[in-house]
């Protein structure tokens, strides 16, 4: 980024300083103090002997140790080597060097003030202002700024040469002092002056920036920014700065950010399409599985008296059921993301009963728990049916609880317990599933609810169960978090809002 402040900021400071002095001169130095350019009343300060490349600190020893100045600039008191009068020396770091501005401190100014106070003629007042600011012309033009002063009649007068791109009507540069009517300005400036008037006619100092715009100047496109200033002494100024470098820099950053966003969106759409394809494939895989399961079940019945066959069939059945469970998870996640999250109930009459859902799921999974020797405890339900209704969909709520219990069972060992509990918490029903397994490893905690989050660490089945739970619960306006249990174990806490309005089936918001 540019190391210098906005040039219009600098110009404002110069113009304000100029209300306190005259015989201004300016130098542009490199960081070592060597002269790059100079202008203004150099002779008044005995600086007219300086040549490009000279060490300016010899003529202005107060600069020693002050180069380069800090980003906020420096103001140094000094005495003019030419006039012997007190000086204000201002230093500012620019892109192309250090600007040193020398202004005589306020002493005898007052002829101009007297002229302004005693004569209300707008043009005379403007002439006085111009005369006071003319020493700044070089510095302002050196900053690439066009400066126009607004007189009491609202007309604009160029302090620096006004190029053709400033005016839609003039074929040549307007010289300093030339008056421009608003209608002569380019459409953007004409429009901006409408806003600027509010600053110029207000009490006290003020400023307003236009924001960047571009003007065509022959084959070249110029990036510009205007600023309306009302100085503390009431002088009204319009600054127009070329902001090509800053403009390009900002535009490049913005363009890169937007290009990234477009690319991100494109990839997201591509992933969605691939997920759709995956869904179709998985769905097709599920078809034959039903037949396989049916056939194995029949074989199991027919060969019940043959221990070896029974064991083989049971192995086949177990694998087929595992496969079916994984496919179901994939399909659940897909439908949760793409399609079926649209409908759920917030109507107290039709919202699912969380206590009933918990009881049903516990009954369904009880044999699996028994088989593994893990106790499943459903804590006594203190909620009546009216108090245990939650926003959601009954089938998917049971699927969420199933996922959490299956997850707990998967990570539990023989003789451990898994506890499913519900409690009333004001506007919410809180469901907890707690196990006594090894708990969630710290490196998994951050990605636990992400798609394939647990599978990435080798901890889960397909790595989609917790993702499905989170997606579903969030879409109902609830939440799900994991808590560690001491000395070991994991607790999943689901909070679901109670239904309050009779607006069943409103669209879900994506989490």
């Amino acid at each position, binding site marked *: 980024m540019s190391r210098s402040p906005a040039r219009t900021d600098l110009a404002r400071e110069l113009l304000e300083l100029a209300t306190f002095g005259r015989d201004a001169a300016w130098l542009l130095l490199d960081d070592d103090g060597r002269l790059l350019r100079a202008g203004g009343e150099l002779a008044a300060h005995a600086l007219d002997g300086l040549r490009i490349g000279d060490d300016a600190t010899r003529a202005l020893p107060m600069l020693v140790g002050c180069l380069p100045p800090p980003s906020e600039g420096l103001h140094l008191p000094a005495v003019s080597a030419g006039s012997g009068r007190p000086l204000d020396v201002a230093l500012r770091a620019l892109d192309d060097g250090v600007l040193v501005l020398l202004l005589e401190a306020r002493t005898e100014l007052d002829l101009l003030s007297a002229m302004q106070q005693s004569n209300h003629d707008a043009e005379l007042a403007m002439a006085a202002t111009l005369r006071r600011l003319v020493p700044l012309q070089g510095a302002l033009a050196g900053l690439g700024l066009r400066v126009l002063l607004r007189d009491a009649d609202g007309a604009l007068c160029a302090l620096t040469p006004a190029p053709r791109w400033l005016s839609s009507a003039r074929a040549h540069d307007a010289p300093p002092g030339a008056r421009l009517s608003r209608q002569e300005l380019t459409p953007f400036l004409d429009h901006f002056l409408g806003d600027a008037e509010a600053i110029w006619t207000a009490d006290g100092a003020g400023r307003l920036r236009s*924001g960047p715009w571009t003007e065509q100047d022959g084959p070249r496109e110029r990036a510009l920014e205007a600023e309306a200033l009302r100085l503390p002494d009431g002088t009204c100024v319009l600054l127009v700065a070329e902001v090509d470098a800053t403009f390009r820099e*900002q535009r490049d950053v913005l363009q890169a950010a937007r290009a990234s966003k477009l690319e991100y969106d494109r990839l997201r759409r591509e992933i969605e399409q691939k997920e759709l394809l995956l869904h179709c494939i998985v769905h097709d895989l599920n078809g034959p599985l039903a037949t396989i399961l049916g056939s194995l079940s029949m074989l199991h019945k027919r060969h019940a008296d043959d221990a070896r066959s029974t064991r083989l069939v049971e192995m086949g059945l177990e694998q087929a059921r595992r496969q079916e469970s994984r496919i179901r998870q994939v399909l659940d996640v897909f439908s949760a993301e793409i399609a079926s999250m649209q409908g759920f109930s917030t109507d107290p009459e039709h919202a699912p009963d969380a206590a009933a859902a918990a009881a049903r799921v516990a009954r369904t999974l009880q044999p699996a728990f028994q088989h593994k020797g893990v106790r499943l405890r459903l804590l006594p339900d203190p909620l009546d049916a009216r108090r245990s209704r939650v926003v959601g969909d009954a089938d998917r709520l049971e699927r969420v609880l199933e996922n959490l219990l299956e997850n707990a069972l998967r990570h539990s060992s023989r003789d451990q317990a898994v506890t499913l509990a519900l409690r009333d918490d004001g506007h919410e029903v809180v469901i907890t599933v707690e196990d006594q397994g090894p708990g969630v490893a710290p490196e998994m905690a951050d990605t636990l609810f992400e798609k394939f989050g647990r599978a990435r660490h080798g901890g889960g089945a397909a790595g989609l169960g917790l993702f499905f739970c989170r997606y579903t619960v969030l879409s109902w306006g609830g939440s799900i978090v994991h808590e560690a249990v001491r000395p070991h174990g994991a607790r999943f806490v689901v909070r679901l809002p109670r239904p309050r309005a009779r607006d069943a089936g409103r669209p879900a918001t994506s989490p």
Partner: protein
Amino acid sequence: MTVKKKICMLGTFAVGKTSLVSRFVHGIFSERYQTTLGVKIDTRDVQLGEHALTLLVWDLNGEDSFQRVRDSYLRGSSGLILVVDGTRADTLEPALALRRRALELVGDVPTALLANKLDLRSGWTIEQARLDELADAGLGVQHTSAATGEGVAEAFTWLAERMLEA
């Protein structure tokens, strides 16, 4: 006598506002995407029957989370052109939101809605039914392609006529 009318181009980023202006005013199109920072004003004279119009077309920066359209730019508009990308359905609602903001500032001015990038029709995701609804609500809906020029002059002309009637 020539009447000047200000038109503001509104929409989110990369929908083709600058390309549409470039096609309408200069008759050219560039494949290169260059984001607009601030404003660029172009003018084009049009003759509608006995009426001579100078259209001041304000090509405003696209609005998104990085950049907001300044309300002051909208002041004085006689007409609005909303531009959406037909291949990005999610560009429609931000454009309509900008229109609501603009109408609060400038009153009820005629609005053309340009579903742009018609040359990429195979990737079209914007719903025609939604566009039909907006047409029924009084917007001048036009499918356009800044790349081929299809529909561009028609859209500006439609808006110019409505602005003259207003």
